[in-house]
């Protein structure tokens, strides 16, 4: 705790903070399963695809505004010039996922795969406008894998749908 980046702390405060740290480690440690899921996250690594980072999420933009959570969520991913826009809407206890890849592939060919942490969930082909659709998606961690002709595949960041 004596790193150059620390702020001076009284011995009593330091001692109390250390006590709390010990209690927290004892009373509320990360469950073993959580650590295990962290370790297995490594298996989800894709080195063959370019990452499309999450650049906008309407869920965060509306944080703090009550009742703003009802309805549709908009997500934007970007990898270089490629943009993947996704709209997620609840339908009962499942989700409708509508998306569009821009610029749309000139040949009108392209495949989008929906992946969960357990593997592939669904597959859709892009239409002429670069749009795709997944029905009856279960809420949970997911990412999209986009394969376009004559281009490196793109995988979006993980998001909890």
């Amino acid at each position, binding site marked *: *705790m004596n790193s150059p980046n620390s702020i001076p702390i009284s011995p009593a405060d330091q001692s109390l*903070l250390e006590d709390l740290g010990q209690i927290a480690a004892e*009373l*509320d440690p990360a469950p073993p399963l959580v650590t295990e899921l*962290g370790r297995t996250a490594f298996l989800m690594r894709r080195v063959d695809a370019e990452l499309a980072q999450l650049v906008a999420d309407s869920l965060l933009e509306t944080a703090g505004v009550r009742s703003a959570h009802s309805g549709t969520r908009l997500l934007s991913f970007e990898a270089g010039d490629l943009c993947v826009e996704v709209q997620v809407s609840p339908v009962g206890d499942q989700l409708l996922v509508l998306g569009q890849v821009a610029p749309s592939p000139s040949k009108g060919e392209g495949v989008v795969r929906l992946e969960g942490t357990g593997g592939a969930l669904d597959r859709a082909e892009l239409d002429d406008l670069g749009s795709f659709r997944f029905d009856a998606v279960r809420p949970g961690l997911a990412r999209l894998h986009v394969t376009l002709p004559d281009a490196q595949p793109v995988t979006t960041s993980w998001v909890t749908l």
Partner: protein
Amino acid sequence: MSKTGSSVADLLARADAGDQDAWNALVDRYTNLLWSVARAHRLSDANAGDVVQTTWLRLVENLGRIQDPERLPGWLVTTTRRECLRILSRAGREVLGGTDDAALDVVDERAPGLDTRLLTQERDAALWRCFEALSERCQRLLRVLMAAEAPAYAEVSAALGMPIGSIGPTRMRCLDRLRQLTAGADFAFGPEIEGSAR
């Protein structure tokens, strides 16, 4: 500040090269810190677990992009907090602003047990109940600061969205309030705690 083992830079480089053991070492080192951040946002076990898993998945996809390994703890905490805010936003809770200091009045006054063999545990339990009666802002800051692998203060500042100049004073104020609560809980705390409360 790492006490033992390989440096973060070394572990990140090895993980980037595909070394699962190096990755596991990173996960083992920081999962408790990330869990603490999620719990400090009062997330349930299930939600906290999801948030931590998401953070690790985010690091996996960004391996090789972490510019400054020294700042990894701050990056992890920031990512975790953002995921917490998503979950809270979805749950429709107000998450920005507000210090909900009214919560400070809520003190659990359950009588401590008398079994002296349990004295340490009882004291710890009582201290923790008092901690949980602190404002969310206090709990968030203290849970990050008390973690064994706590990030540097500049990183804490960025991660929790608090000005760095306010971290020291807020820390002191929150610990003082904790002492007031423990004094009110009418339980024998260690001399270092009692002493400062008077």
